């Protein structure tokens, strides 16, 4: 999609690949902040990954998801493959739904993304519970809710470098 939202008349600049990489790296950094025991801290990597695989499904896909998942597994000290599995499925799901999701207003996009993010979290929970871990408490599932709420400001933030200044003249009515 070349507009920020489907009703907008502004045309976006093409995305810069390095910006995608930087945003994913910043998300990884945000995930590694010492906020482990705060309830409801969203999984930033999942959110940004989800955003780019909705916006640019041909640039960000399951390969990125796998690598980031591996990094998160090691950084968290979690079981290897836990984040990988969830992120790869998340990237696949969002890429498959990307055409549809972008035709909704932002608030409804957030509603569409919520089950995907929640599913990724539930999947990790199921994997660890099946492997014999303890239930970490319901606050584990608040993160995706917050992440879905952050979809709206996140979209504006991540699309910011693609906006171009509005300069209209009679030759360029848009």
């Amino acid at each position: 999609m070349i507009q920020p939202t489907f009703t907008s008349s502004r045309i976006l600049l093409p995305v810069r690949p390095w910006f995608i990489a930087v945003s994913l790296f910043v998300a990884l950094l945000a995930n590694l902040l010492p906020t482990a025991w705060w309830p409801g801290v969203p999984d930033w990597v999942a959110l940004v990954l989800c955003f780019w695989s909705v916006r640019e499904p041909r640039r960000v896909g399951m390969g990125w998801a796998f690598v980031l998942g591996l990094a998160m597994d090691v950084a968290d000290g979690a079981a290897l493959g836990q984040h990988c599995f969830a992120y790869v499925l998340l990237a696949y799901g969002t890429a498959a739904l990307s055409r549809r999701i972008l035709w909704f207003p932002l608030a409804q996009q957030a509603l569409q993304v919520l089950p995907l993010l929640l599913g990724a979290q539930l999947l990790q929970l199921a994997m660890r519970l099946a492997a014999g871990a303890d239930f970490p408490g319901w606050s584990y599932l608040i993160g995706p809710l917050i992440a879905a709420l952050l979809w709206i400001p996140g979209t504006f933030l991540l699309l910011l470098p693609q906006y171009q200044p509005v300069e209209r003249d009679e030759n360029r009515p848009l």
Partner: protein
Amino acid sequence: MAGIDHAPPPFFKRGPAPLALLTFYLAISLALFVVDLRVQSLGLLRQSVALVVDPVQRVAQMPGSLIDHALAYLGDLQEMRAENTRLKESQLLTAPNLLRLEHLEVENERLRRLLAVREREKAGGQVARILYTARDPFSRRVVIDKGQMAGLVAGQPAIDEAGVVGQVTRVFPFSAEITLITDKNQAVPVQIARSGQRSVVFGRGDGQLDLRYIPANADVRIGDLLVTSGLDGIFLPGFPVARVTAVERDSAYAFARIAATPLAGVENFAEVMVIAPRQEALPPPPPAPDRHPAPHAAKKAGNP
């Protein structure tokens, strides 16, 4: 003509089908997951990824530690002075014991030699700083700032000034992971200091410990001190672990339900001492089929 037989422009090149890619990546992830949890032979992969992730991790920790340092710097001097006085006092209080310790150790050694009993090992080790709590909400672990480069190996016990904190379970080149004794999968063989009865404490996952395999009619009281028994060949005997806080005897069960609180500041500390691995060889395990809980648990704790 060059224009006739050239390949079509790569407009429609999209790589392998998404479903094929998905299957591929999911298969790898699942294989990693199963192998990591069941066989635990992915140390090398974990270490090499950690080598890349570790610097990022440390950068991410920086703002927090900067704020901490700033707060500590600005924190009132009064508190520091009080702490300093307290520390000096406690040092003085322990001085007589410490000063005599060396003498006693020499004497003990000599007496043991006279009795032809093997000498007791001395506890040595290195101090490490806790970097952060591991983010995994399913377990209780912390990461310390020393690793393979400092000679750490998996299995070494870690203590603080009050008692046992946990055990090193994963070693990376520049950091190591300590599983706290409050982790659900961590077991420490202990004995009750007063009665000498041996058993195993398990973490509960909520900051408390469970003393298991104690018969319902055994002599356990609230306030009993639990110290490491050393039966596992990993922990040196005699380190304080926990204090019994609740004893619940129900004749319906063979064992009493005993809760204990860890003595070490297990969930809030800054520095730990990682004890050097024990040198003495363990006697071979008895061939008898009846499995005593303590060696079993020790084996579990030793090979995480």
